[in-house]
C-alpha cells in the first residue's frame, strides 16, 4: 500500500471540535482574571451556632468522618506527582490518615491534589474533573507551579496557579514539596475540615457555593 493512501484514510480530528476547544480555553482565561477569594478567611471566622449543643456535636461526628477518609482523585499533571507517590508509599504511608485509595473516577473522590504545572490546553479538563467531584470537596495546590505557575509563570501557555481555575483550600510550597510538607498540608486540611459547620450554621454551605459560582461564572 502506498503511503499516500494511508494519508487519505487517516482520520483527522474535527475542525468544529477544535474551535469549540479554543473557545472554552479563551472563556476560562477570561474568567481567571477575576479576583481570587482569600484562602485564609476561615481562620478568622467566628463560630456561630444555631443550636449549639446538639447540632455542633453532630457536626463533630460529620467532620471526623469526612477528614479521616479523604479520597484523592487522580489528577497529577506533572512531576510533583512523584512526591505524592512517595508520600503514598510505605515510607511515609498516607494510609495512616485513611487516604491510601486513589480514585480514578472524580465522582468517588473528595480531594484534588493538584501536583504540577498546568497548561491552558489542559485547564478545561482539570476544571471538568473538579466539577465532577461530589460535594463536599477540597483542593490542595501542591508545589510552586500549583500555587503560582512557578518558574513557568510568564509562559504563554501556563496557568498562573490553580486558584485561577478551581477554589484552593491549602497551599503547599516547594519545588517539589517533600512528602513531609505534603502531609503537613493534609493535616492543615484536616484542621480546616474539623472546623467546618454543616448543620450548626446554615451559612457554611452557602459560602462554598458562592465561591464556586464565582469561578464558573454562573449566578
Amino acid at each position, binding site marked *: 500500500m502506498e503511503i499516500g493512501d494511508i494519508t*487519505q484514510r*487517516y482520520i*483527522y480530528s474535527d475542525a468544529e471540535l477544535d474551535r469549540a476547544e479554543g473557545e472554552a480555553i479563551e472563556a476560562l482565561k477570561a474568567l481567571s482574571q477575576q479576583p481570587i477569594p482569600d484562602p485564609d478567611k476561615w481562620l478568622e471566622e467566628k463560630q456561630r451556632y444555631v443550636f449549639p449543643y446538639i447540632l455542633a456535636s453532630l457536626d463533630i461526628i460529620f467532620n471526623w468522618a469526612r477528614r479521616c477518609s479523604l479520597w484523592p482523585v487522580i489528577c497529577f499533571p506533572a512531576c510533583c506527582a512523584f512526591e505524592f507517590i512517595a508520600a503514598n508509599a510505605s515510607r511515609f504511608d498516607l494510609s495512616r490518615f485513611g487516604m491510601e485509595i486513589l480514585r480514578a473516577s472524580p465522582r468517588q473522590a473528595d480531594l484534588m491534589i493538584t501536583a504540577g504545572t498546568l497548561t491552558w490546553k489542559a485547564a478545561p479538563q482539570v476544571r471538568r474533573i473538579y466539577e465532577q467531584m461530589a460535594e463536599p470537596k477540597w483542593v490542595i495546590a501542591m508545589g510552586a507551579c500549583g500555587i503560582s505557575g512557578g518558574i513557568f509563570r510568564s509562559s504563554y*501557555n501556563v496557568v498562573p496557579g490553580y486558584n485561577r481555575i478551581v477554589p484552593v483550600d491549602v497551599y503547599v510550597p516547594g519545588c517539589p514539596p517533600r512528602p513531609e510538607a505534603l502531609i503537613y498540608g493534609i493535616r492543615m486540611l484536616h484542621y480546616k475540615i474539623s472546623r467546618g459547620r454543616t448543620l450548626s450554621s446554615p451559612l457554611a454551605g452557602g459560602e462554598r457555593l458562592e465561591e464556586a459560582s464565582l469561578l464558573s461564572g454562573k449566578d
Partner: protein
Amino acid sequence: MTVSLSGNEVAKQITKHLSEAVIKASGEAVLVKSESIFDVAEYLKSSPELDFDYLNYITAVDYYDYFEVVYQLTSMKHNHSLVLKTRCYDRDNPVVPSVVKLWQGADFQEREIYDLMGISFEGHPNLKRILLWEGFEGHPLRKDYL
C-alpha cells in the same frame, strides 16, 4: 553505529538528477532550495544506494533573516544518515513543501513547526495547530514573539 554521510558526496549525487536543487554542501549537511525539497527527498528515499527510508525528525530554527528547516534522515538498510536543510526568507508567509507523502512521521512534526514557528507546509493534509489551541495569537518560538 550509524555512519553519517558526507554532505559533499550526497550533493554530487543529487546534482546528477536535479541540477538546480543544491545551494551549498558541507561535510555535515546539504542545503537545498525550498521549492525543490520534495523532489530531493523523493530522490533520497527512492534511490537504491541511498535509500533513506526513515525520517528521524524535522525541526526549524529562526535565524532572524530566514527560517531554516532541518531534516535528519536515516537508512535502515545501509545504516547511514544525512542532514538535509532548507531555508525560507519570507518572514510573513514562509512556505516549504510537505514531505508527509514520503514519510508519515512528518505529519505531527510539521504541524508542530507550523504551530510554534509559523512555517506553512504546502501539501500537508491536516495543517493546523497541535500544541496550542485554535485562536491563539502568534507563533511563540519565533525570536520576535514576546
